[in-house]
C-alpha cells in the first residue's frame, strides 16, 4: 500500500529477563498520526514491549527500526546513547503512569514545560515562558498556576502537565504507559478527550499501553492484544473489540464491566 512509510517497524522483538522472556516474537508497524493500543493484563508483556520500543530495555532479539524526521531509518538497538538522547529531546515523548516519574516535582509548572526547550538551546526567558504558558492553556491548566509546583496539583492536573512537558518540543512519536490508571473516572474521561484532540491536532503517533479496553476503544485506531509475552491478536480497534477471534481476546472483552 502506497502512502507515507511507517514510523516504527518492529520485527521479532523480544526481551529476556534472565531465562524468561518478558516479550517475544513481536511484529508491529506504526504510521505517523496513528494511535496503537497495546492491551493485556498484568504480566502480559505489554510494559516490557513498551520498554523495548522506548529503548529503556535492551532488545534481546529482533529489530526495531525508526524513521526520523530527516527520513533516515535507524536500527534502534545500534544507536549510541547520545543519539538516543537526541531522539528523546526532539522526536519522542514518554508519558508515565505516575506523573511524578515524568516531572520534576520541585520545579514550577512553567519550568517543567520549559525544560525541554532549554535543553534544546532556547535562551530567552520571555519566549520560554510564553510557550510554556501557551501549553498550559492547551492542556487546560489555569495559566496563573505557571509558577506553582506539581506537588500542589491534583493527579489529573499533574498528568496534563506531564503531557504538556512531552509535547512542547512537538515530538512525532509518544509512548504512554497507562496514562489514565489511578485517576478518577471523570478525570480519565477528560484526559482521554484531551489526548484525542492533541493527537489529531498535532498528527502524533502514539503507542499506548493500557489494561483498560475502554481506553483503547476511545483513543486508538489499532489494537494489539498481548498475553504471556506474545501478541495474541491485532487489528482495527473496533474490530478486535467487537469481533474478537482469539479465545483470550474473547475472554478479555467479555470481562469488561458493564453498568
Amino acid at each position, binding site marked *: 500500500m502506497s502512502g507515507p512509510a511507517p514510523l516504527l517497524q518492529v520485527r521479532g522483538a523480544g526481551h529476556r529477563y534472565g531465562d524468561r522472556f518478558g516479550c517475544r516474537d513481536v511484529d508491529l508497524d506504526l504510521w505517523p498520526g496513528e494511535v496503537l493500543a497495546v492491551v493485556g493484563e498484568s504480566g502480559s508483556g505489554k510494559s516490557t514491549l513498551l520498554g523495548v520500543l522506548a529503548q529503556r530495555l535492551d532488545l534481546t532479539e529482533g529489530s526495531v527500526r525508526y524513521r526520523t524526521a530527516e527520513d533516515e531509518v535507524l536500527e534502534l538497538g545500534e544507536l549510541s*546513547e*547520545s543519539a538516543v538522547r537526541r531522539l528523546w529531546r526532539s522526536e519522542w515523548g514518554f508519558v508515565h503512569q505516575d506523573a511524578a516519574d515524568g516531572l520534576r516535582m520541585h*520545579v514550577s509548572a512553567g519550568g517543567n514545560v520549559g525544560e*525541554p526547550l532549554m*535543553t534544546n538551546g532556547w*535562551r530567552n*526567558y*520571555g519566549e*520560554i515562558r510564553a510557550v510554556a504558558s501557551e501549553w498550559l492553556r492547551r492542556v487546560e491548566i489555569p495559566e496563573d498556576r505557571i509558577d506553582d509546583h506539581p506537588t500542589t496539583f491534583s493527579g489529573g492536573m499533574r498528568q496534563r502537565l506531564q503531557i504538556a512537558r512531552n509535547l512542547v518540543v512537538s515530538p512525532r512519536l509518544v509512548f504512554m504507559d497507562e496514562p489514565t490508571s489511578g485517576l478518577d473516572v471523570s478525570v480519565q474521561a477528560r484526559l482521554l478527550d484531551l489526548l484525542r484532540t492533541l493527537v489529531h491536532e498535532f498528527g502524533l503517533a502514539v503507542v499506548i499501553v493500557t489494561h483498560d479496553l475502554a481506553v483503547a476503544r476511545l483513543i486508538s485506531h489499532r489494537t494489539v492484544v498481548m498475553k504471556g509475552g506474545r501478541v495474541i491478536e491485532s487489528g482495527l480497534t473496533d474490530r478486535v473489540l467487537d469481533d474478537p477471534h482469539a479465545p483470550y481476546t474473547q475472554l478479555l472483552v467479555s470481562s469488561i464491566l458493564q453498568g
Partner: protein
Amino acid sequence: MNEPITYNTGYLDEQTKRMIRRALLKAVAVPGFQVPFASREVPMPRGWGTGGVQVTAAVIGEDDVLKVIDQGADDTTNAVSIRSFFATVARVRTTTRTDEATLVQTRHRIPETPLAAGQIIVYQVPVPEPLRFLEPRETETRRLHALEDYGLMYVKLYEDIARYGHIAKTYDYPVLVNGRYLMAPSPIPSFDNPKMHDNPALQLFGAGREKRIYAVPPHTSVESLGFEDHPFEPQRFDRPCEICGSSGVYLDEVITDDAGGAVFVCSDTDHCERASLAGAEDEEARA
C-alpha cells in the same frame, strides 16, 4: 635521635605528586572537565582546603613564592596555617603581595590585583559538580556533562527569575568553560566571575573531599550563564572601601559595635594595604 623530621618537598611523596600532575595535565587538556584523582591525607581535615593543598603541593618548587588567602585575607587562621605549612615543607618564600607571588592558593576569592602570565592560582573547591544540588546522582551528572545536556542548569536560573525576578545565585555562579563544559568556579562571589575569563594566569581547582581536579588554561573563555533577556550581572557595590577608598572592589561588611554599626572594607587585604599606603604617600607628597 633528635633529628628534625624532614619532609619531601611539598609534603606529598613523589608518586602522589606524579598522580596529581597527571590529573592536572588532563584537566588542562579538557578545560572545565572534572578529573577524578586519588585524594590523599594531608595534615588537615576534609573541608579545610585539602584539595587546594594537594594541588599546590604537586606544583610547588623551592623557587616559588607563595601567597595564601582565605576570603581575600592573608591573615585569617587558615591562610596563616597553610602558608606556614608550605613554608616548612616546601621551603619556599611566602608573601602577601599578589604581584610578587608565583603561586596563589585561595579560598573563595580572586585577588583584585590582575594576575599575570606565569602565575598559577589554585582554588579550594567544596562541591565541584555544578549540577549537584539539582541532580544528586553522580552517574547522571557525568552523563549530562558527556552529552552536553545542561538544560537542568537553565531550569534553575529560570526558577530564580520566576520566583525572584532575577537570578539569585551570588556565589559559585555556574560558568561555561571553553564553550563546552559547565563548571563550578568554587564559592567565589559572582563579582569575581568576569576575572576568570581570558585570564593570562593558569587557574587550577582542587576538591579534596570530592576527589576532583579541574582547570582553566590561560586565555580560555569563561562565560557566566544567563538568558538573552536576563543576562548574567555581577554584583555591584555602590560605595568605596572605608579604609583605602578604592571603588570597584569586593567589600566585606564588618560589624563594629554591639549596636549593629558596620563598615564596608576591602575583602582583599593585600590590595587594601597597598592602596592605603599609596594613598598616604600621595597625601604626604602633596603636603
